[in-house]
């Protein structure tokens, strides 16, 4: 296994960055990763979300996976939980739409109405 020393350095740097911003996440993103989600391309969707956050140098957004929510026909499904706001669920989120949702909703604060599901 690769040495963990580098990882410890990353940890210390991340902590320093987080302290500068008060240590709280501004948003949580949930990507549905059941069989249906994965078959519909959820891995690429999650990758696009993480890549966009990285490109925008955003490090205070948590991205997590979840199982099937029962809306398989809408996969890939993504939920955005902004702090102090009701969660918004988006359907058919491919990589391109994922990047748009990150930029407009998480960073811009505006729901992307035409992509909202439910």
């Amino acid at each position, binding site marked *: 296994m690769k040495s963990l020393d*580098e*990882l410890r350095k990353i940890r210390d740097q991340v902590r320093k960055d987080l302290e500068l911003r008060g240590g709280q996440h501004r948003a949580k993103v949930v990507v549905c990763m059941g069989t249906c989600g994965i078959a519909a391309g959820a*891995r690429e969707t999650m*990758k696009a979300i*993480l890549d966009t956050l990285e490109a925008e140098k955003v*490090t205070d957004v948590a991205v*997590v*996976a979840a*199982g099937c*929510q029962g809306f398989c026909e809408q996969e890939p499904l993504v939920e955005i939980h902004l702090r102090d706001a009701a969660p918004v669920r988006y359907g058919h989120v491919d990589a391109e739409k994922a990047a748009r949702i990150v930029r407009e909703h998480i960073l811009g604060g505006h729901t992307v109405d035409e992509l909202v599901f439910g």
Partner: protein
Amino acid sequence: MRDLSLHLLDILENSAKAGATRVVAGVSLENDILTFSVQDNGPGLPAPVAADPTHPYCTTRTERPVGLGLALLRAAAEATGGSVTVAGAAGRGVRVEAVFHLGHVDARPLGDLVGALVTAAVGWPYDLVVELGRPPGVVLDMAEVRRALDGVSLAHPSVRRWLEQALGEALAPLQEQAAGVAFGGTR
């Protein structure tokens, strides 16, 4: 599923749903025989699934009475002349093993194995352990990674890069070999 790595990602979700805290994912490739194994420490197979684990209508799901993960895995493996075994006595966790012949004309490509494993390692709350080869050697232990990170998020870009590098270096020879033995591959 478009490729075999997505099947591995898919069955790794089952262990999360079962509440496992430690899951060992093994990957090995001998000649053109690819083996995925997943061993978790969850509660074992529940009654509705134990009867016939790879049957779509034997499921614990409550959203609808169909579960396709293991059924699709079995179809993908058997299409290459391989097989899937699922064992899980109550209290002993579940072990899934899938064997594929990558040289078979109907074998789908291996795909982005590193991406699938990083997604599972970051996405699911249990400690994923990745083992490579036979006899297996540990190439990633998320329990140690979590200890080293001490509360820092796994989804942080720098952490994800580290994980991609760690698994990328370890799995590169296998991915290359897989491309070589694939039907119509670069052998």
